[in-house]
């Protein structure tokens, strides 16, 4: 097969999303898990009221807060989607189009849902 017949792969789109999500989670993931999963619910090190409806809503209504929430949820899902797709492919768990739908498809839906909810919540 010579170069002219080689079809360029669209893998770069998913790989860059995977990379962004991987870097974001590598830099802030451990802190976020401790914060939202351990510290806030129990009031350890941070006031418990920071996690109540009013505070979280205030954060989610702030434009910067919206960007943060969108980036974290969407990119974490795109990162996990690529990893899960490749792992399922390694395991020969099913036909590739189905695996893509179950991974990339879910990440796409999640990104859309997150954006929609953030807009619904208002400013």
């Amino acid at each position, binding site marked *: 097969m010579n170069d002219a017949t080689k079809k360029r792969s669209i893998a770069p789109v998913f790989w860059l999303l995977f990379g962004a999500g991987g870097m974001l989670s590598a830099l802030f*993931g451990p802190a976020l898990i401790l914060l939202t999963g351990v510290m806030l619910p129990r009031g350890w090190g941070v006031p418990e009221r920071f996690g109540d409806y009013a505070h979280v809503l205030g954060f989610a209504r702030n434009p910067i807060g919206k960007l943060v929430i969108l980036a974290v949820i969407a990119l974490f899902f795109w990162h996990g989607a690529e990893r899960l797709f490749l792992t399922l492919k390694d395991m020969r768990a099913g036909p590739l189009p189905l695996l893509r739908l179950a991974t990339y498809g879910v990440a796409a839906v999640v990104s859309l849902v997150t954006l929609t909810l953030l807009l619904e919540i208002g400013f």
Partner: protein
Amino acid sequence: MSERRPFHRKQPRTWWAQSPYVAYTVRELSGVAVALYGAILLAGLVCLARGPDAFARYRQIVASEASLLIHLLLFVAVVWHVVTWFQTMPKTIPKLILHGRPVPQARLTAASLVFAAVCSVALLAVVVVVGACS
């Protein structure tokens, strides 16, 4: 030449569970854990959009013992993601030449792990300080 009959050995279906590939599979699954945590945050956003009652119920569940265990497991998995991420990262860039010699990849990994630790600690510090001052 007429005797040629190349024999194809099939790749074992479970190669990913056998040595030396187990470490790689574990590394990939640690990346999936990142999305599992993202799902917990998504659930929170959904409940937030539903209103104060739904969000209060979400907070209750997150404050439970089971949730604490899940978060600690996810924490371990994500820390493993961080370590393996920066072990792999130097492979994705051209060799860094300093003073005429390539910088050892282990040094790049160590420097980025320090940077990642600083980032996570800084985030926690900011929240703690804001909380203390309010």
